[in-house]
């Protein structure tokens, strides 16, 4: 380590001037012994251990986590196990309410609603998670680049962010989905044999590309703050490349707000997909997502309210649990609140 510091010439000259006087001399760096002893009284705690301890105290966040994992398991594991099919048409049971054969009732064509909720829940949840990932990756990349490199690229990227923030998101989303979904469907139907994948990609990418901006601003601000810290200077002094400074040294220190934003983004994306499908502009009607089930149900409130209640409740509970998880994470990852 000392070899590196002294031997390898640091990349930029001014950094040397700044760092060299601060490289502690051997005499001064030895801290008073009793302080070290004090530190060892308590067992070591890691950042994530602290966060987890804090998170567990947030009862609603824990309840949200359990509920969310229950949803994930019920839809991804439960759907293939559930005996009823999503497109078993049974006109004799059309629009029937809750019964043993159909726990959540049936829709206008006599299809089992629970089967459709489980099957479609996978799509709704997957859209939420993947769209939030797209937004977070794009937002983090842009925010990190702008904050770390600064100068012209910062100005340019922030102008781009401002432009995207000013875009009318909901109308654009509706327009894009309506105009392009057939083309995506046809293309993926031909090349991959599954047009739904195309719609999925279209929706996920468009939601992601219309919602990365707050993350970018957040990450940029954290990067601007963190890159001035001494440990980054130290990293630069031992010859860490700019790439490694960005991703190994700064990024882990700005993860907390990113994680919170990502969590809340999943809920927001689930709502957005539901809005799209509810307006009839999302997935095609033979693909039951929670939103498109509401679309099918909305003209039959008087005769079959359960058709709307069950998928609507699923959306609400999922988003609620995600928001509570986000709330708990925000508290748990905030070092000011950690005891």
């Amino acid at each position: 380590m000392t070899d590196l510091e002294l031997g390898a010439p640091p990349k930029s000259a001014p950094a040397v001037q700044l760092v060299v006087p601060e490289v502690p001399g051997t005499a001064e760096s030895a801290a008073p012994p009793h302080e070290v002893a004090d530190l060892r009284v308590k067992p070591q705690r890691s950042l994530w251990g602290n966060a987890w301890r804090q998170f567990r105290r947030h009862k609603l966040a824990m309840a949200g986590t359990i509920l969310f994992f229950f949803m994930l398991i019920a839809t991804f594991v439960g759907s293939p196990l559930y005996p009823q099919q999503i497109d078993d048409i049974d006109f004799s049971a059309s629009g029937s309410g809750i019964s043993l054969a159909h726990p959540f009732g049936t829709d206008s064509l006599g299809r089992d609603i629970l089967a459709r909720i489980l099957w479609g829940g996978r799509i709704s949840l997957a859209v939420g998670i993947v769209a939030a990932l797209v937004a977070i990756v794009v937002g983090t990349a842009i925010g990190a680049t702008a904050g770390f490199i600064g100068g012209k690229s910062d100005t340019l990227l922030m102008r781009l962010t401002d432009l995207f923030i000013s875009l009318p998101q909901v109308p654009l989303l509706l327009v894009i989905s309506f105009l392009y979904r057939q083309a995506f469907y046809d293309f993926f139907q031909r090349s991959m044999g599954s047009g739904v994948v195309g719609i999925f990609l279209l929706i996920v990418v468009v939601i992601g590309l219309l919602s990365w901006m707050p993350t970018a601003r957040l990450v940029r601000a954290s990067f601007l703050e963190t890159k001035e810290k001494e440990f980054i200077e130290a990293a630069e002094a031992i010859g860490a490349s700019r790439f490694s400074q960005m991703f190994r040294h700064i990024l882990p220190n700005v993860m907390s707000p990113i994680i919170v934003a990502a969590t809340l983004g999943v809920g927001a994306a689930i709502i957005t997909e539901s809005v799209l499908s509810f307006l009839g502009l999302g997935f095609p009607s033979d693909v039951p997502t929670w939103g498109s089930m509401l679309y099918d149900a909305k003209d039959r409130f008087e005769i079959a309210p359960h058709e709307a209640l069950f998928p609507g409740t699923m959306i609400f509970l999922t988003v609620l649990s995600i928001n509570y998880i986000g709330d708990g994470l925000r508290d748990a990852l905030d070092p000011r609140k950690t005891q």
Partner: protein
Amino acid sequence: MGRYLIRRGIISVFTLIAISMVIYSILALAPGDPLSGFANNPNVPPELRARIRHTMGLDDPIPVQYARWASAYARGDWLQSYSAKIPVRDYVMGRLPVTLKISGTAFLLSVLIAIPIGVLSSIKQYSIFDQVATTFAFLGFSVPTFFSGILLILIFSVYLGWLPFVYDSQVTGFWPNVKQSIMPITVLGLAGAAQLTRFVRASMLETISQDYVRTARAKGLREQSVVVLHAMRNALIPVVTVMALQVPEVFGGAIVTEQIFRIPGIGRALIDGIYSKDVPVVMAITFGIAVLVVLFNVIADILYAILDPRIRYS
């Protein structure tokens, strides 16, 4: 401030030009030639179709078409609606009053709910009232408007039969109008109130722990005047700017509620326009919302500078 405003104005104009290019390209590049409208009608004979396309300039390159469209817009000509067969301007203006009435009232309602509840729950932090208020704000913030709208319809229209759930713009008289507006206003208003309450509470909590508030208490002022005159005045500065930023969202939120309650407003016009590929209408509404977003961003900044003497733009 003057120079700042001029610079902001110039940036805003460029932002709007860029946005209009984005929207135009999305429409122009879409498969199925949506910009061509009735020139695509299969009932029109091919040679006539070609002539219409030519006179409409649809064979020109996209940048030329965009320039023509932009210059028409700049002159205040919003083109002709494909499906309504009237100028888009008249069509949109005809739809605007209903949206303003419903969404505007909802916006006022959300402010009237959020400020007192947010303030009360911050000065009684961790009390029962605060816990109930924050829980409801959290629920309201997590429930999508399409679901709360459906719930209200199921309860008040289907089971109780008190309120009509289809909005009828032909209805006359004060009371029937109120009855059909209650549910959409409630849905939008509560959703907005939930967000705003959280914000008011957070802002108040931050202000109330400041030294000058303690000073105000220490010099023996009544609690009421400490809260209202000292803390609230400062805590509401960021709230006002957030409210300004929420104004364009009023129109975005109207898209879903107008669809649920079948209100013939702007949001409904947008959805109908999308379904019928009525591009001039879609373009006008989408771009109109973009103008509002940019405009209210500037307004929020100006309000901030006026209300907070610590902020000075240069």
